């Protein structure tokens, strides 16, 4: 008998975390045993401003349903000003994605410091539930990367 | 050639031999252990590793060798770099054979042959020399002039100084670019050496090597009285399809992958110098 499986939507999320704050924050979240969804894939970057807009698009192309960038709080950047540039760049990029019809919640920038393990897991949980509500990404997808 | 020109077959790299610090020879057979296809000396095949790249590589082994094919490859780019890192038993994909061949059965038959090669340019020449040795009675005198930067860079050194020395009426002259310790052979660039040897102008010449070597060799040969119609070479261009359709490897109205890679110099002279 054929079994029709109704699989709950499990969003794929890519989180770009800066090496100095957010990645350490994620570490802390881990050692504090704070939970965050396992389907969040963390990509460590030297600074949040290392994240080229193409990385974000590529993540969507390869099947991500949401992309979040985490960096040091403004003023705390290891390279002193990197995250300020991230802020402007991503403000413009996200606005452009939305202009093309991509849902607002799919992309986000958050500031998480090395000591904010709790904030890291809260942020991730919150982002994951936003993406779950939005459902699968169909507006920036490459079907070739979704066949399994 | 295979029916599906663009779909490759799987080949297994059975044996990898380190020839020089940056040249390895790869022996390729089919998954069943048998040779994948027959070829003629001078022809090429498209080797690829999915996810890495695809490249046209000339077949080094003799057509008389029907058990396998060999490719001597210098580490230069993406694909070749990957090939140099891999282990025996690795599968790759292969399609071919492509291109024309040195006219060993027509123009070159019964002739005295002069082979001039530099560096990895010896790869396609090796196939012809092997072919001539395998059909020794069909050819006259065989003279090989081969050079590389250092003694360590001489590909097939052992073969050239071993078995080839014993072939009747065959001469191998080796040279290196600069003096090196332990080298008591000739020192000097290939074009100069070839000219110094004063080869008989009745020979047919097969040249392969870096463009600059070909250029000066040609000059030297012409000074000795050789004609363009006596000299053959193989060309190299960026290729994608290998079957004369993707449109990038043409020199004038000729496609290197299909009408070449072997050209006689008088043929090249009639074509635009876009190579």
């Amino acid at each position: 008998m054929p079994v029709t499986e109704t699989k709950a939507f499990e969003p794929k999320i890519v989180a770009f975390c800066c090496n100095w704050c957010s990645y350490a924050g994620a570490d802390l979240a881990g050692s504090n045993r704070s939970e965050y969804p396992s389907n969040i894939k963390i990509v460590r970057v030297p600074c949040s401003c290392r994240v080229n807009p193409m990385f974000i698009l590529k993540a969507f192309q390869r099947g991500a349903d949401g992309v979040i960038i985490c960096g040091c709080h403004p003023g705390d950047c290891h390279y002193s000003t990197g995250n300020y540039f991230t802020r402007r760049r991503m403000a413009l990029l996200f606005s452009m994605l939305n202009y093309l019809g991509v849902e607002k919640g799919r992309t986000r920038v958050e500031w998480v410091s090395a000591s904010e393990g709790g904030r890291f897991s809260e942020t991730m949980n919150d982002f994951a539930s936003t993406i779950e509500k939005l459902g699968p990404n169909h507006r920036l997808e490459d079907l070739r990367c979704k066949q399994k | 050639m295979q029916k599906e020109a663009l779909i490759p077959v799987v080949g297994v790299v059975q044996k990898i031999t380190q020839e020089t610090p940056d040249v390895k020879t790869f022996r390729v057979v089919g998954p069943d252990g048998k040779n994948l296809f027959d070829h003629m000396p001078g022809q090429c095949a498209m080797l690829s590793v999915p996810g890495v790249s695809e490249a046209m590589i000339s077949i080094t082994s003799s057509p008389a060798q029907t058990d396998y094919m060999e490719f001597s490859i210098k580490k230069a780019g993406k694909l070749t770099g990957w090939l140099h890192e891999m282990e025996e038993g690795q599968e790759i994909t292969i399609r071919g054979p492509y291109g024309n061949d040195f006219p060993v059965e027509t123009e070159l038959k019964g002739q005295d042959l002069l082979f001039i090669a530099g560096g990895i340019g010896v790869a396609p020449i090796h196939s012809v020399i092997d072919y001539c040795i395998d059909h020794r009675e069909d050819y006259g005198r065989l003279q090989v002039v081969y050079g590389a930067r250092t003694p360590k860079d001489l590909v097939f050194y052992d073969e050239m100084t071993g078995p080839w020395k014993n072939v009747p009426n065959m001469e191998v002259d080796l040279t290196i670019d600069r003096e090196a310790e332990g080298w008591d052979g000739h020192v000097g660039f290939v074009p100069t050496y070839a000219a110094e040897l004063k080869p008989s102008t009745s020979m047919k010449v097969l040249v392969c090597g870096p463009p600059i070597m070909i250029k000066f060799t040609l000059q030297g040969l012409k000074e000795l009285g050789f004609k363009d119609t006596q000299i053959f070479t193989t060309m190299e261009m960026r290729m994608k399809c290998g079957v004369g359709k993707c449109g990038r490897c043409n020199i004038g109205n000729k496609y290197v992958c299909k009408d070449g890679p072997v050209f006689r110099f008088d043929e090249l002279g009639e074509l635009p110098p876009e190579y």
Partner: protein
Amino acid sequence: MLSITEAKLYEAFAQLKKNGEAVYLPVDNTSGEADFAEWKEGTAISKQLKTVRSAKDFFFPQTENLMKFKVHGKKINVIDTREELSDFVIFGARACDVASFKLLDRAFIEEKPVDTYYENRREHGIVVSIACSKPAASCFCTVYDIDPTHPNADVDGYRVDDTFYLEAKTAKGEKLLKQIEPMMSESDDQCVKDQIATTEKILKNLPFANLDMSRFNGDNMMDIFNDPKWNSISETCLGCGACTFVCPTCQCYDIKELDTGDGIERFRCWDSCMYKDFTQMAAANPRPSQKERFRQRFMHKLVYYPKNYNVYGCVGCGRCVDKCPTHLHIVNVIKTLGEEGK
């Protein structure tokens, strides 16, 4: 001649669709130009002369998956991903499009080895042409002896107002018309003859009708190649691929790979000899500047092609004339090198 009204034509398309044969036809898009699109209920055929993209897409699409590889450790599995094709109909190709198929056939089928991807599509495609009744200023197909009033496809069609007159030219065409026979009726074709006569008059007066091709005779390759005029004429070429990608006869392609996460797909996509990476090798580029690349494109169509096959690699559709951002199109080249260069 058999005729069918526009309303009945859509019934016929619906019938063909039911029989499993998709129909593609020129449809006006929101920018006011036409492009080929699949017929669905409610789709109306465009009245425009030319589509932006040529009809070559159907046989040689801009991107096309060739195969898939699955890699497990040292093992490689090659998978032919092609699916069985069903017949499809291209309705409304022009004579230049039809002529371009013959040029592409030469490259992909007649020149061995056969490109089976192209051949497969070609076998399943049925071409219904519509003769031109109002050629555009940029048209010059007659220069290449193409008769836009007799396209010579599987079915030749004429559109007079809202009625289409159809005539099968091949077995494939007859088979197609058989399927839609009930929608058609036999009718007098005097209006078609009148239309052809009017069109012929326009053709004679086209601005490019008398292009002088005599210098491009396939014999003087090096003479044309070395013409100093290439320097000035190519100077402001942008090196974009607009001419190539709207051209019905350009056949160059690139082979690329995409790692999908579930194997590697190898696909081909149109490439342009106008792009600098077209011939770029690790150490050198045999066509280092835009001059060489520009020259290659036109030498290929006007010199190498006639030299090899005795026919030009251009069908005079005029698409590049319409679309070149800097107006350095093939007519400009023919005039500069051909007429003034003699």
